[in-house]
Structures are given as structure tokens and as C-alpha cells.
């Protein structure tokens, strides 16, 4: 094993071989052993994709999922940064409010999902709100952590050199906070996705939840797997973008 997959690209090659093997086993099992009402082979899923995308309602559901995700994430970033700055502003606000934020974070948020539907209805608003309610916590936690990471010496030296309060925020605090803000955004992306998917699956009368339920009730695994593959791809791409951005913006702080 070690001899075949050595060198810089060894792990990548083994990864590709493993995935290919997995797909082959799945293909074989689905073709010859498992009831086609439950599992569709990978080739069947791929063959079904054009048909899936020819339904304008499915395309609309995916598009609205994407839009909900974007708006929820934007709300989480803006509101989370504002709350985080307020919480981290003074040692007193940090010590008294931060534990409350941590306590709220520990509540399994899924339990209040039905309330969001009750308040915001079955449409996009409840999905955006539920997604944003998930995404806001990592942003707050990381903005606060970023503010704590600013060294008092830097602020003090800026002050002695006659920097104004605005200048200190712009030139000292913000650059120090950028890496942890992006770390927060990467985590927020993952949980915002979770929140939106939760709300989408809970509401089975419209959107993604409607189609996943219809496809399983029709015993149509090719369409179901296809839709899920598309959603998983969106999730993986968005997470990867967030991860790359984090790497990019934290590179300067290599000390």
C-alpha cells in the first residue's frame, strides 16, 4: 500500500481510488441485490438529473433554498458582529453577558423550530429566520474571541502615539479581528445550512421538504438521491469557499 501511494499525490490518489471503489460497490449492490424501490445506483442518479432539472418547480425550490441561505447568512454576519462588538466592548459586559450567550448556545435549537413556523409562517421567512438564528452564535463567539485577542500593548502604544478612538478601532482592533471573524463565518456557514435544511424538511407543503417527501412516498430513489446530491454539493462548495476565505485572511498573522 505505502509503496504504491507514496509521494506528494499519494493520499489524493488513494482517496480517488477509495471513492471509486465505494461507488462501484454501491452500483453493484443497487443493480443486483437491493430492491430498486429503495436504492438507485449512482449511474441511475446521474441519468435522472436532467429529468429532475427539467421540472421548473424543483429548480425553483433549489433556487429559493439558495436565496434563503444567502439572506440568513448575511443577517447572521451583520447582527452577530454587532452583538459581538457590544458584548466584547468592556470587560464588564463580557463577563456578565457572555455566559448568557453561551447558555443560550447550549439549548438544542431544533426544539423551537415549530415556534419559528408559527411566527413566520410556512414560506421563506421562517427558513431565513431559523437559519440566521443558528448562524448568529458562532459569529458572536468569534467576534468576542477576536476582540479578546487584541493585545492591550498595541492599543496602549497607538494611544501614546496620539491615535483617536476611531483610528484605534480601524487600524488596531479590526485588522486583529479579521482572522477570527472569518473563522466565525466558516462555522456560521455550516450551521446556517443546517438551520435552513431543518426548516425546509420540517415544512413538507412547499420547497425542498415537499419534494423529498413526495419522492420517498413515490419510492423514487433516483430523484431523491439526485436532489440530495445537489444540496450536498451546494453545502460542500459553500463550506469550501468559507474555508478558503478564512485561510486567505488569516495568512498574514503567521507570527
Amino acid at each position, binding site marked *: 500500500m505505502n509503496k504504491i501511494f507514496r509521494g506528494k499525490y499519494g493520499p489524493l490518489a488513494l482517496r480517488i481510488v477509495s471513492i471509486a471503489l465505494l461507488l462501484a460497490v454501491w452500483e453493484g449492490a443497487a443493480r443486483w441485490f437491493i430492491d430498486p424501490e429503495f436504492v438507485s445506483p449512482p449511474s441511475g442518479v446521474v441519468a435522472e438529473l436532467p429529468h429532475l432539472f427539467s421540472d421548473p418547480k424543483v429548480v425553483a425550490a433549489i433556487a429559493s433554498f439558495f436565496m434563503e441561505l444567502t439572506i440568513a447568512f448575511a443577517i447572521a454576519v451583520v447582527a452577530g458582529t454587532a452583538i459581538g462588538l457590544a458584548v466584547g466592548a468592556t470587560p464588564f459586559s463580557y463577563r*456578565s453577558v457572555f455566559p448568557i450567550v453561551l447558555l443560550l448556545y447550549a439549548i438544542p435549537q431544533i426544539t423551537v423550530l415549530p415556534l419559528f413556523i408559527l411566527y413566520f409562517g410556512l414560506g421563506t421567512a421562517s427558513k431565513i429566520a431559523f437559519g440566521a438564528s443558528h448562524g448568529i452564535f458562532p459569529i458572536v463567539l468569534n467576534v468576542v474571541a477576536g476582540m479578546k485577542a487584541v493585545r492591550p500593548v498595541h492599543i496602549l502604544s497607538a494611544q501614546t502615539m496620539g491615535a483617536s478612538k476611531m483610528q484605534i478601532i480601524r487600524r488596531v482592533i479590526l485588522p486583529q479581528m479579521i482572522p477570527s471573524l472569518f473563522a466565525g463565518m466558516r462555522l456560521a456557514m455550516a450551521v446556517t445550512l443546517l438551520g435552513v435544511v*431543518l426548516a425546509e424538511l420540517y415544512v413538507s407543503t412547499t420547497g425542498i421538504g415537499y419534494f423529498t417527501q413526495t419522492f420517498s412516498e413515490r419510492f423514487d430513489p433516483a430523484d431523491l438521491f439526485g436532489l440530495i446530491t445537489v444540496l450536498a454539493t451546494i453545502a460542500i462548495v459553500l463550506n469550501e469557499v468559507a474555508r478558503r476565505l478564512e485561510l486567505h485572511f488569516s495568512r498574514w498573522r503567521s507570527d
Partner: protein
Amino acid sequence: MAKSDRLRTRLVQAGFFVTLLAAWSIESALRLINPILFPRIENVATQFVNVMTSPATLGDVWTTMSTFGAAYGIAIIAGISVGYVVSTSRLFTKTYEPVLAAFYTVPLLIFFPTFILFFGTGVKSKIALGCLAAFFPIALNTIAGFTSVDRNLRTAAISFGASRIQMLRRVLLPGAFPIILTGLRIAFIPCFASVLAGEIIASDSGLGHEISQNAQMMETARMFAYVFLVIIIAALFNLGLSTWETRRGRTLV
């Protein structure tokens, strides 16, 4: 931190909860918000007593906790086994760790509809979902734990002629244990939340089922009572796990 400071902090935190309860009581007394949207505090209290004294609750708690237990148990065995195998070679670690880490960030809940298709709306689909959610953090922490064991310790054990089993029992497991334990604690919340999510989205029993049923029937006060029960269970579990984690971690290091 000075003592007076700590007192002041605690006072603010206590004040927050007192204010919250007071605001809720005043809102309930003045009947400001439609109780279907936000229930009155006294109704939630009554419903909470009703829920706690109802014999059916024990069944719901049992359904949810046994589902969670099965999912968590399978995930622990699978996660530690897979983590151990991946950690045995550098090639495996380099190959599979990024794959496991990538999966960890995908909302695994999107696979729930396929589990409903395979296993139906009973407990099996929730076990599968909870297990999937807990597997990745446990496997990743197991890899991190085993690979973090001091190389000198391994070399020493090998030169003293330790067998593979001895190496695992006497060197690797004790060294990796604190990090694996952290993985178990991290996995608790996603596993428990996934079981509840599964019950809320599609099920016929359990605490999550009660929450979504009562919400759909606009019995918001009763729904709140169940939400509080779930929060209490989760908090107790988390407290137990983190106490165990700090205690075990200390004795072993």
C-alpha cells in the same frame, strides 16, 4: 478576578433571569401577546406539572433516550474503530482525515429523507441520523488522539518488546483517552439534536414528536413544557459528561 467583581458579574446574570421571568409574568398578567403565539407563564407551569406527572411522558422520554442511546453507542464503536484504523498509518491519516473533516461540515440532516425511505418513520431512521451526526466528531477526535501520542513513548514500548495489543492497551489508549473523551462530549449535542430533529420532522413517538404535535395543534403552552423538559435533559447530560471529562482527563495525564 477580584471577589467583588465576581459577585457583580453573578448579580448581573441572576438579574438577567429574574428580569426575563418578571417580563414574562408581567406580559402574562397584562395579556399583551396572543397566548397561541406566546403562552402565559402560569399555563406553561401548569402544563409542565401535567407533563411531568403524566404516565405517557415516561414512554416518550424512554423512546427518545433509547433512540439516542442506540445512535450514540453505535457511533462510539464505529467512530473509535474507524479512527483507530485510520490513525495506524500516516498514509491513511493523510488520505482519509480530510474526507472525514469535509463530511463533518455538511449538514448531514439532508440525508434524513433517504433514511425515512430505507427505515420508515419509526425509531430506526432516527438512530441512523443520530449515529451519522455523532460518528464524524468521534472519529476525528480519535484520529487526533492516537496521532498525538508521544513518538518517544511508542519507540520505548517497541524497544521493550511490546506486542500490538499491549501497545494499544498500555500506551495508545491511555495517551489518546482524554482527546477521545472530548470527541464523545462534542458528539453529544449533534447526536441528541439529530434524534430530536428526526422526531420533530417525521415520527410517531418521542419528545420531539410531542413538541411538533403540540405546535401543530396550537397547544403552545404544552409545547413549551416539553421544550423545557428537553433542555433540562440536555443540560444534565452535558454537565455529567463535562464533569467526567475533566475528572478522567486529570487522573490520566
